């Protein structure tokens, strides 16, 4: 298949593997930020092609995983209300809240629908004028422009029955949080290619400089990741703390101007709590005041929910890259994709799900 299979070529992968081995002279720890990259690494076994000096650390870039349990509880609460059609991307449906998940609401008779785009939720609102249609807007900068477009469309159509529960988060503040943590052991980053396709990579330049880490904007196919690792290793070995772009076929330094414009028009940067990382200042997107009428948090009173998380889940440490999923005592036993304790076991971008799906072969070898 064009534009896919050529990036999964075994011979080229072996060549990159050899180049990386030639470049490495000491131990390095590189964090891939995005959960999509984690899945590629684990699915294709990219880490098996790397020399033992290199450790890949899985980062917090799984939007489903970092959505705090408070937000899931609010979603569950709103979805359970009479007359509501609650729309969500597929991976959010099984994420456990305090007492229930969205699939549980659906099983109990709630109208929870899986959509592929926020625009589908706008269409549902048009088709069901007597129902309240709520969209659960989860994601990084990658999906924010489409969410913004849906809000703008709802405004144009004067839809009084459409709103969204916004839980958008931003990548650079999360990288800052990882780097400023005392437990941080990351020497370099593979930045999330699709986030950068929207935002460009200018905002990563001060991070590279301030914390003294090289950052390589990297794609998602096996050869993208191998090339990104090679570029990052060369920068590390040369001691150059700069931003480089591996994903040139998609990403420019300035990003997508019109997409950024839509995000700025609809959203403002706000403080946001992350699962695993805690509250991070100026790390999320919330609706601007002029779009407040579309804020589901305002439309439905969801304050006063009591929140609790499983104490047996170490997703916080997994999301900060401090521990690997298979170092969790619950991994594969108490916690599986069928009975997840935490979000990283659910999402198609979650590190725990990736380890379970592609590495776990039972409790004994």
């Amino acid at each position: 298949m064009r534009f896919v299979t050529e990036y999964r070529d075994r011979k080229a992968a072996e060549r990159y593997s050899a180049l990386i081995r030639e470049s490495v002279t000491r131990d390095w720890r590189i964090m891939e930020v995005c959960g999509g990259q984690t899945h590629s690494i684990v699915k294709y076994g990219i880490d098996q092609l790397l020399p033992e000096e290199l450790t890949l650390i899985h980062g917090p870039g799984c939007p489903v995983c970092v959505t705090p349990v408070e937000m899931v509880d609010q979603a569950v609460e709103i979805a359970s209300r009479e007359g509501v059609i609650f729309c969500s991307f597929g991976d959010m449906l099984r994420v456990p809240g305090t007492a229930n998940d969205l699939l549980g609401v659906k099983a109990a008779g709630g109208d929870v629908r899986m959509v592929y785009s926020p625009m589908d939720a706008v269409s549902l609102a048009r088709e069901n004028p007597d129902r309240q249609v709520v969209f659960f807007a989860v994601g990084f900068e990658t999906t924010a422009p489409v969410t913004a477009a849906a809000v703008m469309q709802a405004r144009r159509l004067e839809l009084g029955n459409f709103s969204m529960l916004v839980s958008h988060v931003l990548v650079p503040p999360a990288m800052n949080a990882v780097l400023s943590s005392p437990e941080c052991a990351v020497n370099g980053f593979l930045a999330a290619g699709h986030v950068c396709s929207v935002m460009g990579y200018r905002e990563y330049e001060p991070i590279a400089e301030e914390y003294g880490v090289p950052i390589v904007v990297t794609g998602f196919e096996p050869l993208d990741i191998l090339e990104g690792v090679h570029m990052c290793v060369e920068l590390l070995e040369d001691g150059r703390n700069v931003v480089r772009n591996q994903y040139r076929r998609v990403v420019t330094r300035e990003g997508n101007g019109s997409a950024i414009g839509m995000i700025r028009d609809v959203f403002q940067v706000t403080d946001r709590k992350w699962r695993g990382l805690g509250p991070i200042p100026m790390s999320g997107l919330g609706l601007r005041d002029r779009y407040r009428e579309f804020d589901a948090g305002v439309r439905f009173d969801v304050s006063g929910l009591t929140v609790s998380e499983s104490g047996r889940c170490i997703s916080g440490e997994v999301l900060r890259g401090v521990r690997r999923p298979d170092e969790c005592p619950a991994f594969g036993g108490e916690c599986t994709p069928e009975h997840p304790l935490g979000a990283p076991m659910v999402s198609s971008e979650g590190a725990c799900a990736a380890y379970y799906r592609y590495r776990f072969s039972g409790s004994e070898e």
Partner: protein
Amino acid sequence: MNDLIERMMIRAFSNPLLDRRHDGAVMPCEGGRLAYATDSHVITPLFFPGGDIGALSVYGTVNDLAMCGARPKWLSAGFILEEGFPMEDLWRIVVSMSLAAERTGVSIVTGDTKVVDRGKGDGIYINTSGLGYVPDGVDIAPRRTAEGDAVVLSGDIGRHGIAIMALREGIGLESSISSDLAPLNFMAEDLVEAGLDIHCMRDLTRGGLASGLCEIAATAGVRVRLEEDAVPVRPDVMAACEILGFDPLYVANEGKFVAILPQEQAEMALSIMREHEQGAEAAIIGRVSDTGRSGTVTMTSSIGASRIVHMMSGEQLPRIC
């Protein structure tokens, strides 16, 4: 009701056993062994590119029998209709079942129809069960899968699941992907008649290739090793999977199976499959190996590394980005 059965079912499925209009069918039995299988069909949408619930309900049971090495002979058909289900749709389904039965050489010899209140069904549910003769000397079952066997796949995977998904969720794909719905009994019979020592066959329906092989590995207590690059997937199916974040190994098929047999007979099985239209893309995709943990399936990825292949848990859910 009587009128409905008379005008539709009896007319479409007419054969000497059914036409006796008794409470059950009485069939001749030649001694030897019978295979018996059943399958219920509760799908949405009822009509899809490449087939409908009618043909599916016949091929589903016929294929299950064929996987036992049996020659399918007789089917029963049970219909549960929701009140108000359009008669023209029912007729289309019944005609499709009749054509599917004719194509596979089976007779629908007994049946039942019930109607439930509006809102208590999903239009139509169909259950079929079937009987077939197993030739002497044939012993095909997961437990016979053994070290050194080859895994032969009868064609490209993932078409049925993607066709249904595209239609159900209204995803506009550039090319229209049709279901691979097809009977497997003739291909399976040819393999059996060629005298191949087939250890196991499995049709790859819900849960796809991965789940089928995981079940076999677990039942037989063996290790199956796949080559990712050897598994045929059409580019349009691959593209749809890439967009949705699906793994084609887990996407449903309705006209594909794997045959597991001694390595030295694999090439012959392959050439027999390729003589059939739906077997043109058949391939040897792996082997039953002696390394790794027993009861597991592993796969060599396209870049040459190794990973575990699991049974599907729940539904595959499309990803965010």
